[in-house]
C-alpha cells in the first residue's frame, strides 16, 4: 500500500510537470521527484495507458521520447497539479513564516512575498497548528554574517565562551549560517584555534567584516548537526551529581546521560551530566547552593567547596 501512496501523487503531478518543461532529460525529472530514472520510465509507461473516456488516440496521454529526454504531446486534461493538502500547506507555510521571523538570516522580504503568493494559491488549506519561534535578539549579527558570506569575506569577532566564562577576539573564515534548535550559529574556520567552530550569534559581542577573502582550508569539514548540538564528543567529560527535587530542572536543561531516581521517593536523583569545562560545572553547582552535590569526580567537589569558602571569606570583608 505504501508503494501506491508514494506513486499516485507522483503520477498525478508528472504530466503538468513535464508540460512546463518540454524536452527535459529523464534523469533530471527523476531527481526532482526523488526517484530513479528507471522508476520514472515505468511511471511514464503507465501514464501512456491513461486518458479520457473514449480512450482512443487523442484521448490518451501521449509522450514523445527523444534520446534521454521526454515531452508531453497530449495531456488528457491533466494540466495542473492537485492542490496542496492541509498537511502540505501547514508544513510549507509554517516553515515560511518561521523564516520570515528570522530577520538577518534570510531575505525576509522575499519570504513574505512568497508566503503571500502561496497562501493565495493554496486557498484556505493552511491553518496555524504549528508555530516555531526563532531567537530574534541577534538580528544585527546575523545580517553582518550573511553579508560576509555573500561577499566571501573573513570576519573579526569578539566572542563570549560560556564554558570558560571568557571573552576573546578571533579572526574567522565564515562557512555557513545555521539555525538549529532555536538559535542562530555562525559556522566558521577559527584561525586562532585552527579548527571549525560553531559560534552562537547571541554570544558574538562585536563583528567586523575584514577587507580580506574568507579562506577556510579545503579540508575544513562542516559540523554534523543532524543529531543535535550536544552530541557526545571526546571533549566531553562526565560528572555524577546528586540533585534535590528543586534542582532537577538541570536534568532537562543540560545534556544528561542517565537519571536514577532516589528510592526514598523524595524526588532527588543521581544524574550523569556531560560537560566540557570544569569551571562551568563548578559555577553551575555553586549557584545551586547545595541542591546539587558533586559525587564524581572528587576534585570538582573540592573545587566547589574551595570557591564557596573563598566567596564567603570575601563577602565578610
Amino acid at each position: 500500500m505504501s508503494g501506491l501512496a508514494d506513486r499516485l501523487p507522483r503520477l498525478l503531478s508528472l504530466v503538468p510537470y513535464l508540460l512546463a518543461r518540454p524536452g527535459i532529460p529523464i534523469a533530471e525529472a527523476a531527481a526532482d521527484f526523488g526517484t530513479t530514472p528507471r522508476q520514472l520510465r515505468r511511471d511514464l509507461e503507465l501514464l501512456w495507458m491513461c486518458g479520457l473516456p473514449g480512450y482512443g488516440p487523442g484521448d490518451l496521454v501521449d509522450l514523445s521520447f527523444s534520446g534521454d529526454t521526454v515531452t508531453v504531446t497530449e495531456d488528457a486534461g491533466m494540466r495542473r497539479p492537485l492542490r496542496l493538502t492541509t498537511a502540505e500547506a501547514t508544513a510549507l507555510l509554517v516553515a515560511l513564516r518561521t523564516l520570515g521571523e528570522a530577520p538577518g538570516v534570510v531575505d525576509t522580504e522575499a519570504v513574505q512575498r512568497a508566503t503571500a503568493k502561496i497562501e493565495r494559491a493554496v486557498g484556505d488549506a493552511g491553518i496555524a497548528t504549528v508555530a516555531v519561534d526563532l531567537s530574534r535578539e541577534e538580528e544585527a549579527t546575523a545580517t553582518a554574517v550573511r553579508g560576509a558570506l555573500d561577499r566571501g569575506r573573513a570576519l573579526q569577532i569578539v566572542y563570549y565562551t560560556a564554558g570558560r566564562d571568557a571573552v576573546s577576539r578571533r579572526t574567522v573564515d565564515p562557512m555557513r549560517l545555521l539555525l538549529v534548535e532555536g538559535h542562530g550559529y555562525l559556522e566558521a574556520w577559527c584561525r586562532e584555534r585552527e579548527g571549525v567552530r560553531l559560534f552562537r550569534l547571541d554570544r558574538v559581542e562585536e563583528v567586523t567584516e575584514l577587507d580580506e577573502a574568507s579562506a577556510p582550508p579545503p579540508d575544513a569539514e562542516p559540523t554534523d548537526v543532524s543529531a543535535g548540538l550536544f552530541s557526545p564528543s571526546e571533549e566531553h567529560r562526565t560528572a555524577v551529581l546528586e540533585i534535590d527535587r528543586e534542582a532537577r530542572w538541570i536534568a532537562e536543561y543540560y545534556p544528561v546521560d542517565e537519571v536514577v531516581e532516589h528510592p526514598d521517593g523524595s524526588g532527588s536523583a543521581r544524574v550523569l551530566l556531560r560537560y566540557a569545562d570544569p569551571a562551568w560545572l563548578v559555577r553551575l553547582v555553586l549557584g545551586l547552593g547545595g541542591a546539587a552535590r558533586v559525587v564524581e569526580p572528587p576534585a570538582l567537589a573540592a573545587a566547589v567547596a574551595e570557591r564557596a569558602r573563598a566567596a564567603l571569606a570575601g563577602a565578610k570583608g
Partner: protein
Amino acid sequence: MLPTVSSARAERLVNLVLCLLSTRQFLPAERIRATVPGYADAPSDEAFFRMFERDKTELRELGVPLETGRQSAFDTVEGYRIARGDYELGEIDLDTEEAAAVALAGSLWDSPELAGAAHGALRKLRAAGVEVDETRGSVQPRVRATEPTFGALLAAVQAGQAVTFDHRRGGPTGEIVRRTVEPWGVVSWRGRWYLVGHDRDRADVRSFRLSRILEPVKTVGDPGEVTVPPGTDLMASVRRNFDYGPVTGTARVWVPEGHAHGLRRLGTVVESRDGGDVLEIELRSERTVARWLAGAGPDVVVLEPPALAARVRGLWEGALAAHEGVRA
C-alpha cells in the same frame, strides 16, 4: 513483464481522476464501472463496490475533492464528480528570490512528518511550473522534532481529536500524571517543542513539553470534536510560562577587572573602582539572579539589595555544607 496488482490499481485510479475531472454531471457508480478501464475486471457486483469504495478512500486521503450528488431531483442514485476548480492548484508565479525562500522553507524541517509534507508541497509547486532548487546554500535553518510523540500529536491536532497521555510533571524525575487534552497546536520555542491545548482535567489552557509526554498517545472521542477558539495565540501560551514578571528592582554588584564575563553580559557598568567594575542588573526573579551571582563565587561582591546579598551568601553556605570534607 506483467503489470503488478499495484500498477493496475494506480492506472485505474489515474483514469478515474481523469474521468471524473472531465464530467460536469454526477456519474453513478454503474456508469463508472462501465467506463473506466479496470473495473470491468471485477467478477461480481460485490467485488466492484468493494474496489470502488477503496479507490474513493485512497483519493480522498490524497486530498482529491471527490463530490457526491444527484444530477436532478428525479435521480434515484448518487453520482460522483471532481470540480476542476477545487482540484487544481491555483496559479503561482515566483521570482528567483521567492523560489529560493520556498526551497529553504522546504528543507527547514528535520522531522519525518513535516519534512515529508513539505516535500510533497514542493513537488506540486514544481509541477505547477515553479523552479525550486533545493541545492544547499550558505544558510541552513533546521527545526528538529525527534520526540517520539510528535507525529501522533500533530495528527491529533490536524484531525481535531482529543488525546490522553501520561505526563511527567516537572521533568525527568517528576511524578507521572494522566492528562486528557484537546490539542490546539504544537509549538517550538527556543528549540523545544510544546503541545498547547485545553486540559480537560484542569479545565484550562495548558502547554506540555513534548519530551515530558510519554508514549503512547491515545485519541479519545471523534475527529472534528476539538475546535480552536478564534484568535488563539499558540506561542503566547507557551511564552507565558517563562515570563519572569516585571522588573522589581536593581541589583548592584562589584566584579574584578577581566573576570565574571557572564555577569557583565547581563548588566551595565555604572562605575569603575578598586580594580573592577560596579554593575547594575535588572531584578525580575531574585531567585534566578541569586543563582547567577552565586555561580561567580569569589569573583563577585553583592552590594545591594541586602536581601539579595543574604540569599547569595545562603547559596554559598549550602554549597559549602554539601561539599565540605571532600578531599581531592
